[in-house]
């Protein structure tokens, strides 16, 4: 079964880049524009892994992660934060919210795939 990834980012360039990188690597990709959109799509998408940006309108990455973790079926869903931010304080916030990992943009497609393969079966 193809691994499904839900990528949440408010930049359409970034969404397209993530989609290209992951689709090329054989993943199935669903996209969402912000935290609220991401949570809306979570049920229908039923992803194996979530990638989320931090700075987004309406609901940011932290809120998105908390929202995911609130759902019992997503309690152990891997969530990767993909952002340009690299501050330790923000990372700690993400960790507390329930993030699995933190990747700093800009990302290298191969390496992103390597990390994903470390997190999904």
């Amino acid at each position, binding site marked *: 079964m193809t691994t499904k990834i839900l990528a949440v980012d408010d930049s359409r360039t*970034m969404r397209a880049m993530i989609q290209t990188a992951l689709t090329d690597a054989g993943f199935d990709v669903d996209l*969402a524009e912000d935290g609220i959109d991401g949570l809306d799509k979570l049920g229908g998408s039923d992803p194996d892994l979530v990638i989320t940006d931090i700075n987004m309108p309406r609901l940011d990455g932290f809120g998105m992660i908390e929202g995911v973790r609130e759902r019992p079926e997503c309690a152990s869903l891997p969530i990767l934060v993909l952002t*340009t931010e690299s501050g330790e304080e923000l990372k700690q916030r993400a960790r507390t919210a329930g993030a699995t990992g933190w990747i*700093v943009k800009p990302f290298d497609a191969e390496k992103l795939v390597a990390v994903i393969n470390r*997190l999904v079966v």
Partner: protein
Amino acid sequence: MMSDLRDMFFEECDDLLEVLSTGLEELQNETSDAETINSMFRSVHSIKGGAGAFGLDRLIKFAHAFENVLDDLRSDKIEVDGTITALMFSGFDHLNDLVDAARDDNDLPDSDGAAVLAELKQTTQNANGLSGDEEEDANEVDSDDFVVQAMDFGLDLGGDDDASVDLPGLPSLGDDAPEGTTHFVVTFKAEPVLYTRGHDPALLFRALGEMGELTIESNRDAVAPLESLKDAPAAISWTLTLRPDDGIDESAIREIFEFVEGQCILQIAEVAVETPAEEVSATEAEAPAPVAEAAPAAAPAKAQAKTKAKPTPAKAPKAEKQEAKGGDGGKKSSEPRNSTIRVDLNRVDRLINLVGELVISEAMLRQSMNELPVSANSAVSEAIGQLKTLSGVLQESVMAIRAQPVRGLFQRMSRIVRESSRQAGKTSRLVMVGEATEVDKTVTERLVEPLTHMIRNSVDHGLETPEDRVAAGKPEMGTIKLEAAHRSGRVVISLSDDGAGVNRPKVRQKAEEKGLIRPEDDLTDSDIDNLLFRAGFSTADEISQLSGRGVGMDVVRSEIQALGGRINLQSEPNKGTTITISLPLTLAVMEGMLIEVAGESLVVPTVALRETLQPGQANIHDFCDGDRGLSVNDSMLPIVDLGEALGFRSPLPDFSNQSLLLIEGESGRRSALAVDGIVEQREVVIKGLEQNYQSIPGIAAATILGNGKIALIVDTDQMIPSPGNGNTGLLKGSEMAEVTSYV
């Protein structure tokens, strides 16, 4: 593919800059709230993120500094005041420049934006109480990190920055650990929280297995008996022994456990091995049994020992891709549903062209119908009537696709106002009205240059210096107003200033000095004002930095005319000047009067048409040189024989059998066009001559008639003599001078 993404990035930049610009306006007008700053921050942040992906270092650095200040603003470390707003505007302008330069692959001079960048950095330093050096370092590290990460992915190990460079399976830079001389012994025990954050020890072990030969032992002593089993995974600990591949060091191993830091007990020890070969084989022999039991049930095979030379992570999904391709190709396109779509402009233009052809075909069909005997079926003509209506609606709808609000154009102009005010030492603000008015995209694009020049003129020549303004009892700050509106089927864009108005005596004097008019010419105020549009005219005593760029208002005027537009200037002393541009809604269709001259069909744009007359010889007056004038309501208009002007025939002896079309040009001047006959008023689809043939004096464009024949569209402005011996392309100076004196 990458270039598509690049295009997409720059398109997105335009949108983001617009958001930023709107935010800035709100800041300036003090209508901003917390979300304003947030959205501004996100815009700059997204630009930085995208720039990082394309390695646009300079853009990254600047966006980074800009973003920091916005971040300080949103966390209330800085208060919004005039200085900050001004800095934000300068930052916005430079960000625009950087985006444009990156888009065109240009390098800006190093000095560009250096001051703004320094000021942004300084602002952040002050807000965060850092000394210059500290912040300098912080910034330096930060931006360096950023660039490095563009290539090295930038996994960021908490607390150990150096580790982030090394990656599984990749030779680590500068590492020269001797081969086969050490093992790593990793002991690992997960805390319960590790599982609730989406981690799986088996996957961590698999990744570790890709770094060399791995043996895994589990310690399940702490696991409770099945009947009282709770939190079982957290009770198991593992001992992993790795015989690393070349270039794998401790930091590479730590990196695998990067994300679980703090969620497990992890110890990594480097153990020297004296007889590596035997030791390894011995371990191998023992290993399999514990591994099979130890690994969590989800992935027993994957965590198996002796995992050297596993496929690289990317490969496994690739194989799956092959399978997936046949079945669910359509499934991946679950793009967010927007109420807008992005369409290549070429496609829209093709559609517009096709609809244009359709309109012509429809006209041809209608014409053929009219030539049929009267007995023609009335049902057919009804259907054709319907076709006409439908193709009209279709045409309008297609044109609407190209329409876009003038907001973007206006916002660009606010920068011009700021810059030219600064350079001219004046203070001014831009007021925008009707930014939502929609105009054809080509029109908004081609208005950039003329509007830019007009605004520079307004600031430079229109507005007074602050001292003069105060002395005249006006507010110190000048106001430039840009207004757009739809008016009777056209778009009207006006630019007004509250300056001193046109200095008519000075304009007249200059025009006389330059030989544009003669001292005895009797000119109305409006005539004098519109002298500004004449070629080679400049009222500035010294060519100023702003307006003296070799472009005069005459160029502005001809650009507007090229868009099928009219430009007009109205001025009131000490109250200000208003320049009004009136443009057709679309560039593709036009109302025109079909006429005949010397056996040729021609079209005169209805826009310029004021009246049609059959005057009779009594109202036509002969002058010397064969010039003739028409007396209308006590004034005399020059008569232009269209057939002669276009070189179709020699001058007619008299105009008694001719129809006269009264036309009015941009300047408000009139003349009478003599033609052989008037056929009908109709809508024509404009076909450019320049791209299909070449430009012809006196002709603006062409169209295809219902009978399939081509009719040329007359450039009426070239048929109207201007005051003095000006630049109307077709008429000789002497003729025009003569004509002027009649008016």
